[in-house]
């Protein structure tokens, strides 16, 4: 039972790992393994697993059958395998090579684990900091003055103080009707120029839409964001003629 607790196949990375474990556990020399002994140990471990209904990976079964094969070959007298491809001693040598090599990587993996832990104790920033553009090119005071006073000038042209609280749509409809009647044809920006506040521009737009609905005027725009041309509508033409 002690072996069962000791040998859990999922603790092993593969059959080579289990083999190395068995070699060290039994204090064998990895360079001169007693094949018969190790085969028995290995098969025992795999059988224990199967008894516990634990699914044993194919690699372990393959290794078990290989070890049994190697063990039986080594028991046979020398001349009986003369014709075959490989000398069992040579096979044992190959297996030893594999075990030694794997054992090396197993140890390196342990070394890497230590390195990983040690290196993990250093903290670093994984994102690069970029120097903000505005730190690179300083603005000059003039540009600030220019930005400020230009804005002020703009807002001075249409001072908010004179803005009326309410702009009556009816008033603007009459005003626009007059302008169109006078000019026959004009641009939307001409109307905007007559407005004293943003609010009035908005109401003017409503007025234009209302006049279009009433067919007093018609408006056309040749392209997106292009100038809007306003002309007399059917009704106004009739008024004109009539």
């Amino acid at each position, binding site marked *: 039972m002690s072996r069962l607790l000791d040998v859990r196949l999922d603790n092993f990375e593969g059959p080579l790992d289990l083999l190395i474990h068995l070699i060290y556990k039994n204090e064998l020399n990895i360079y001169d393994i007693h094949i018969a002994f190790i085969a028995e140990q290995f098969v025992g471990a795999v059988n224990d697993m199967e008894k516990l209904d634990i699914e044993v990976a194919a690699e372990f079964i393959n290794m078990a059958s290989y070890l049994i094969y190697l063990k039986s070959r080594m028991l046979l007298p020398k001349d009986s395998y003369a014709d075959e491809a490989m000398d069992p001693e040579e096979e044992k040598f190959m297996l030893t090579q594999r075990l030694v090599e794997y054992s090396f990587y197993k140890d390196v993996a342990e070394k890497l684990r230590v390195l990983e832990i040690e290196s993990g104790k250093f903290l670093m920033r994984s994102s690069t900091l*970029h120097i903000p*553009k505005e730190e690179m090119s300083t603005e000059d005071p003039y540009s600030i003055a220019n930005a400020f006073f230009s804005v002020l000038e703009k807002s001075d042209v249409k001072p908010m103080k004179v803005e009326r609280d309410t702009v009556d749509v009816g008033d603007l409809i009459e005003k626009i009707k007059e302008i169109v009647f006078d000019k026959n044809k004009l641009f939307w920006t001409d109307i905007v120029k007559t407005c004293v506040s943003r609010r009035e521009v908005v109401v003017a737009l409503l007025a234009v839409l209302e006049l279009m609905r009433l067919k007093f005027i018609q408006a056309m725009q040749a392209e997106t964001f292009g100038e809007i041309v306003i002309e007399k509508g059917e009704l106004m033409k009739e008024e004109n003629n009539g």
Partner: protein
Amino acid sequence: MDKEQKIFYTSLFLSGTPLDKKFFRKVLEPINLENRLLSYVEQFNAMELGMRIRMVSGGYQMVTDKGLLNELEPFFGEKTEALSRASLETSAIIAYKQPITRIEIDEIRGVNSSGTVRHLLEKNLIKVTGRKDVPGRPLLYSTTKHFLEYMGINDISELPTFREWQELKTRQ
């Protein structure tokens, strides 16, 4: 150098972005902390390592010395544009009219400036300096020390006056 000082420096190094006093009060002994932090900042900046710690709105940030910007810009310079027209206008209004509320800025610019104001706060070019004593108690904004640095002036009073600007303008 004691551990607290090292934690202060390494936190600023790891973060790369500003860390406020609240953060350090969590990490370090909060009693009389601010005075100690100020002395750490002074000591660090006196070493002149190329990095320095600057005070930003309510916190600290480890940044590059201005003197190295030309050398480092090709490798670490941000690829985005300088201040936008809206940012320039808004920060100019704040510079001349500070402290000023956002609504007042909006009235001068004729457009809503909330996005721009937020951007300028993030860039540490302006800061909140109080509330105006009117209904709604709106926040008041002023420009920062960093703004002065950025403009290459020592004091707001160095900004051109209206008359100076007019002269400059006509000459150009």
